C-alpha cells in the first residue's frame, strides 16, 4: 500500500484526466455519434425492408386467395351453366321426342285408317269386279253350254239329277 501511494503520480493523473475528457468529447463527436447513427439507420432500414417484404408476402397471399376464390366461383358458375344447359338440352330432346312420337303415332294412325279405308274400297271393288267377272264367266259358260240341244238337255238332266239327289 505504501508503495502504491508512492507510485501514484499526480501529474500522470492530471494528464490522463484531461486527455480522457478530450478523447471522450472528440470520439463522441467524430466517431461514436456517426457510427451509432449509421448503425441505427442501417438496422432500421433492414427491419423496414423485412417488414415491407412481410407485407408484400401477405398482400400476395391475399391476392392469391382472391384469385383462388374467383377461380372457384367461376368454376362453380361454369358447372351450374353446364348443368343448366344439359338440363335444357335434355328437356328439348325429350320434348322433341315426345312430339315426334305423338306425330308419328298420329301419322301411323291416319295411315292405318287410310289403309283400312283403301283396303275396304279395294276389297269392295275387287268383290264387284270378281262378281262381274264371275257373271261374265258364267254367262260365257252358260252361253257355250247351251249352244246345242243336247247340251241343253244334258244340263237339264244334270240339274235334275242334282235336284233329285238333294
Amino acid at each position, binding site marked *: 500500500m505504501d508503495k502504491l501511494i508512492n*507510485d*501514484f503520480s*499526480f501529474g500522470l*493523473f492530471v494528464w*490522463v484526466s484531461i486527455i480522457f475528457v478530450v478523447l*471522450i468529447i472528440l*470520439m463522441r463527436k467524430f466517431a461514436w455519434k456517426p*457510427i451509432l447513427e449509421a448503425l441505427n439507420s442501417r438496422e432500421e432500414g433492414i427491419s423496414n425492408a423485412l417488414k415491407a417484404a412481410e407485407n408484400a408476402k401477405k398482400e400476395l397471399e391475399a391476392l392469391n386467395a382472391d384469385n383462388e376464390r374467383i377461380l372457384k366461383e367461376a368454376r362453380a358458375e361454369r358447372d351450374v351453366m353446364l348443368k343448366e344447359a344439359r338440363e335444357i338440352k335434355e328437356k328439348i330432346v325429350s320434348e322433341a321426342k315426345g312430339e315426334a312420337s305423338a306425330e308419328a303415332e298420329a301419322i301411323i294412325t291416319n295411315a292405318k285408317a287410310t289403309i283400312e279405308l283403301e283396303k275396304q274400297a279395294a276389297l269392295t271393288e275387287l268383290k264387284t269386279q270378281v262378281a262381274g267377272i264371275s257373271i261374265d264367266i258364267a254367262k260365257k259358260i252358260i252361253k257355250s253350254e247351251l249352244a246345242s240341244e243336247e247340251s241343253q238337255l244334258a244340263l237339264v238332266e244334270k240339274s235334275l239329277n242334282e235336284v233329285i239327289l238333294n
Partner: protein
Amino acid sequence: MKTNSFFKLLFTFAQILKTINIHERMIGKLNLKVLVVLMLALVPSFTMNANDDQHQSGAYHEEATHHENNENAHKALPHSEEEGYNDGVNTKDEVADYIQHHLGDSHDFVFFSDEAAGHHYGFPLPIILVDNGLKVFMSSEFHHGDKVVTKGDAHYRLYHGKIYKTDAEGTIEYDEHHHPTNAKPLDLSITKNVFSILAISILMLLLFRSLAKGYKNGPIPTGFARVLEPLVIFVRDEIARPNIGEKKYRKFMGFLLTVFFFIWITNLLGLTPLGINVTGNIAVTICLALFTFIIVQFSGNKDYWKHIFWMPGVPVPMKIVLAPIEVLGMFTKPFSLLIRLFANITAGHTVVMGILAVIYIGKETLGTGGSIGVSLFLTLFINVIELLVAFLQAYIFTMLSSLFIGMAVEEHDHH
C-alpha cells in the same frame, strides 16, 4: 542486437498489417488463425526487446544486493548507483528491480540501451515542473539520472523515476526507511505513459473516424472497419443495452465505447515490445474509475439516492444500519474497478517478465538451451492468456461501469 530488435519490431507491425490485409475478407472464419499468427509474431520480438531493456535497467542499478524485495533493494543502493553499468540482469534482485522499473512510469521513452557505451536508444520527453513558476525542459538534460539539472536557483535530480529538489551536488536525503525525504516539485511532465496515452488516443480517433467515414459510402463497412464494427455493436448490444436499458443507454455510449476501446488497445499495446504499462499504472486506473464514479453519481435518479440513504421496504432501524453500508458501497464499486484493472495488468506484466528472467536465473540448473526453451514456451503460453486478459479486463471494466450506471438510472416501479 539493438538494430535487430528494432527491425523485429517493425517486422512485427508489418506482419500485423499484412495479416489483417490478407484475411480482411475472411476475418470471421480465420479469427483464431490470425490470433495465433499475431502471437507467434509478437512473442519472439518481445523477448528480444526485453533482453535489451534489461541491459538498460542495468544502468540504474550497479551492484547485486541481498535483499528480498525491491524496496529493500533500493535502501542499500549507494548514492552513485546511476553512474556505473554492469553486465545485465543476472540475479533475482536485479530481475525484481528490472520488473519494478518496467512497471513504473518513466520520463523518457527508451526502447533499448547499450550498457557498455552508456547509450540509450529512444527519445526524451518534455519535463514540466510547477515549482515557483513553470519549468519546462527535455528529459535528456537529466542524462538518465546522471546529471543534476539547474533551473533558476533550483536543482532537480531524477532518482528512481521521480524528480526531487536537491542541492547543487544532487544529494538525496533518506529517512529511516531509506525513502528520499527531498521535496518533490509538482511534476506535470509528459511521461512515457502520458505520451503513450496521447498516441493511443490519436490511434483511436484515426481508426474510428475511418469507420465513421466509411458509412458515407454505404451501409456496409469495408476493410479494417469490418473488424471494428462488430466490436462497437458488441459494446452496444452486449454491454450497454442489457445493463442500462433500452431507453437510456444512448447517453452513456460515448463513455462506454471510449473506455472499452481505450483499455483494450492500451492492454494490447502493453503486450507489444514497446514496453509500455499504462493500464497497469494506478494513476490511470484511478482516473478511469473516477470517471465511472462521477458519471454514476451525476446520472443517479431519485430512486438511486433513496436506496442509498433511506432504503425503501425495510424497517426504520434497518434503514439506519443500511445507509452507511450503501454509502460505502458507492465508493467500493469504482474502487474494485480500479484495483481489478491495475492488479490484472500489473500481474500479467510481472509474470511475463518473471518468466523471461528464467533465461538468466535458470541457466545453471537447466542449461542455456533448456532455460531459453522453458522460458519461451511459458512466455508464449502466458502471452496467449494475456491477450485474453487484455480483452476481458476491457470487457469487465465497461460491463461493470454500465451495470453501475444501470443501477443508478433504473426506474423502480415496484415500490
